[in-house]
């Protein structure tokens, strides 16, 4: 409770002590579109607007939010698939913000990505042996025992039949294609994998297989994940810490149990209350906090707190002078309770959103004890 300045959430205790990835005030503004030859240039689209977090070795950070909140862009900016327009990204203590693609190449071994649509990110004309082996070729590495052997080892590890080495992507089901993507990301033994909606396109039963695989690989290789998803249940399951994003900014970031059982930001409240749980008795007693209105445009965000236009608390609970404050002064994300940083002038703990009863739900066992 001592921290008062606009510090981001402190790095969660990591196994090595020093954070693997430190992201400080990262911005990604896309230039506004010019309308025609004579048109005026529009406002820049602030897809990511000052995002800070850090991530320890072997840790999983969940990044949640609705479409257009900037979570995918954040993932891409952090993994340097796109250039951030502001802020710094430090990987293993080294500033990598402004490295060119060429300078990034050695770092690519350490930092990989998995995408949502496994099919569109696989070249249909390449056999999956080639696809999974591509990182070796790009990095000019000859693994022990030859590329083919290494690739088949990877295939076996992610649950693919190594005999399918020469098959093409279209011969595989959605879940298997995601395994291909994972095997490729894994080839060079990275330390961090940014997973962008890796299980969203999969059926529930297959999704569970892939989630389990990701967890197994994490404990086996000490991987860190940034897990970008809109499914709050999956994120709760897999993450150590969770950041909730809205309109390019982090609204709340804390460890997962606190986020789900004692969230402080009104947006987190609305998000959690909206997810239906597969239990009719619980559902019947849960309160739904419905948001009204549409997501504002990221090229023209509201003044003050970016959430105030849709904030149920702003609408129903605050006094006029408090509202005035929300409209005019932008909150900074700061630690409101130990380890829980919130972007809100009037945060408030709510613990009744998930099971409809106040108080903590049964404590979760520590992950991967």
């Amino acid at each position, binding site marked *: 409770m001592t921290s008062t300045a606009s510090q981001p959430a402190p790095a969660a205790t990591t196994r090595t002590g020093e954070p693997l990835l430190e992201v400080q005030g990262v911005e990604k503004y896309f230039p506004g579109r010019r309308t025609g030859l004579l048109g005026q240039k529009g406002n820049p689209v602030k897809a990511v607007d000052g995002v800070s977090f850090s991530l320890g070795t072997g840790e999983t950070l969940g990044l949640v939010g*609705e*479409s257009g909140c900037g979570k995918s862009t954040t993932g891409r900016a952090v993994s340097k698939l796109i250039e951030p327009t502001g802020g710094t990204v430090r990987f293993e203590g080294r500033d990598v913000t402004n490295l060119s693609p060429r300078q990034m190449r050695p770092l690519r071994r350490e930092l990989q990505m998995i995408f949502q649509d496994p099919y569109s990110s696989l070249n249909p004309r390449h056999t999956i042996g080639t696809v999974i082996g591509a990182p070796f070729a790009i990095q000019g590495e000859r693994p022990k025992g030859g590329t083919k052997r290494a690739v088949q080892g990877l295939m076996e590890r992610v649950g693919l039949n190594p005999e399918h080495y020469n098959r093409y992507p279209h011969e595989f*089901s959605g*879940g298997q294609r995601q395994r291909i993507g994972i095997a490729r990301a894994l080839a060079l033994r990275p330390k961090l994998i940014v997973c962008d909606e890796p299980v969203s396109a999969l*059926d*529930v*039963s*297959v*999704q*569970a*297989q892939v*989630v*389990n695989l990701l*967890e197994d690989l994490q404990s086996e290789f000490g991987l860190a994940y940034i897990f970008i998803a*809109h*499914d*709050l*249940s*999956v994120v*709760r*399951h*897999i993450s150590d810490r969770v950041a909730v994003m809205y309109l390019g900014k982090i609204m709340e970031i804390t460890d997962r149990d606190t986020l*789900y059982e004692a969230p402080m930001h009104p947006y987190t409240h*609305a*998000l*959690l*209350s*909206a*997810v*239906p*749980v*597969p*239990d*009719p*008795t*619980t*559902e*019947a*007693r849960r*309160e*739904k*906090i*419905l*948001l*009204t209105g*549409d*997501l504002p445009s990221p090229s023209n965000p509201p003044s003050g707190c970016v959430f105030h236009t849709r904030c*149920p608390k702003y609408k*129903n609970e605050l006094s006029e002078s408090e509202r005035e404050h929300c409209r005019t002064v932008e909150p900074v994300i700061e630690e409101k309770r130990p380890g829980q940083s919130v972007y809100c002038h009037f945060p408030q703990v709510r613990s009744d959103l*998930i*099971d409809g009863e106040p108080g903590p*739900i*049964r*404590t*979760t*066992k520590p*992950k*991967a004890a």
Partner: protein
Amino acid sequence: MVDTSPSAAAVRDFADEQPFLVVDDLRVHFPTDDGLVKSVDGLSFELRRGEILGIVGESGSGKSVTAQAILGLHKGSQAKVTGRILLDDQDLVPLSENEMRRVRGDEVSMIFQDPLSSLHPFYTIGNQISEAYLVHHKVSKKEARQRTIEMLQKVGIPNAAGRYDDYPHQFSGGMRQRAMIAMALICQPKLLIADEPTTALDVTVQAQILELIKELRDELNSAVIIITHDLGVVAETCDQVVVMYGGQCVEKGAVDDLFAQPEMPYTWGLLGSMPRMDRVRQERLTPIPGSPPSLINVPKGCVFNPRCRFSDRVEGRRCFTEHPDLLPTTSTTHEVTRHEVRCHIPPEERQQILLTEIRPTL
């Protein structure tokens, strides 16, 4: 807009009402070069007015094909539809395309998964909705416009009159789905089918849309079918549920019964695969091994047997040789909707497995 009222569905009782929709032994088969695809193979259920039925299943389970069959959308295609679909005692299966056309949009209407691709990009929202009204009502365009604007207001589109002439791309995802709902409801259908109505939407928008469907159900007293892969949506919205796998119903019952006492190994698999936000569960998920069955070479015996962990609990090799019937369970509490399951495992044993092996892992 904070809604604290408990789900109205939970307190409704349909005991006195006659079924409004009866689907009886519905089969939808598609001949292809590779063989006959049995997308839906012997599906039966009943639905009363004011009731919401959830059809749950993964891709390829036949849930969307069922919805399209009820609306007669397979007419004019290669598909072979047999069985009976009784809507208010009228069988829809033998109707011609032209007869079915009068039913569509008027008595039965449908909401689709992706509102952007389901709306025509070249016509205004208002034009497309009023078209649905004009086709079934002899009114002037002006009256249709008025009616459309009322409908847009009802589904919660602000400044409805002003947005009448907007094109779909000028609407947000949630607003588009509201417009689709307005289109589906403008003729006050007695049966509304929603095919994954919220899958393409964000969770806060999903909550709004589900709320809207429930409100409109209450107002019109329509029967509603919601097709979804999300058991959470079912628990939140539905009165009864049909679990589909490989084109068949493997378990069905009142929502309270089915969630309290699921008895089919596939339903256990679905529940075990789902990460839970609302309760402590053991760290690892319990996925269903393998992948969904081919609908051309449907497994012999029980359609779920290649992926079932419990087929060794059945004497002999019945799971592999004998197709199980959909039989009532002993755990039905609901007066009207029986809880039924398609499984060879003896009922006592099933309940024992649920208690000792399944429950602790959920």
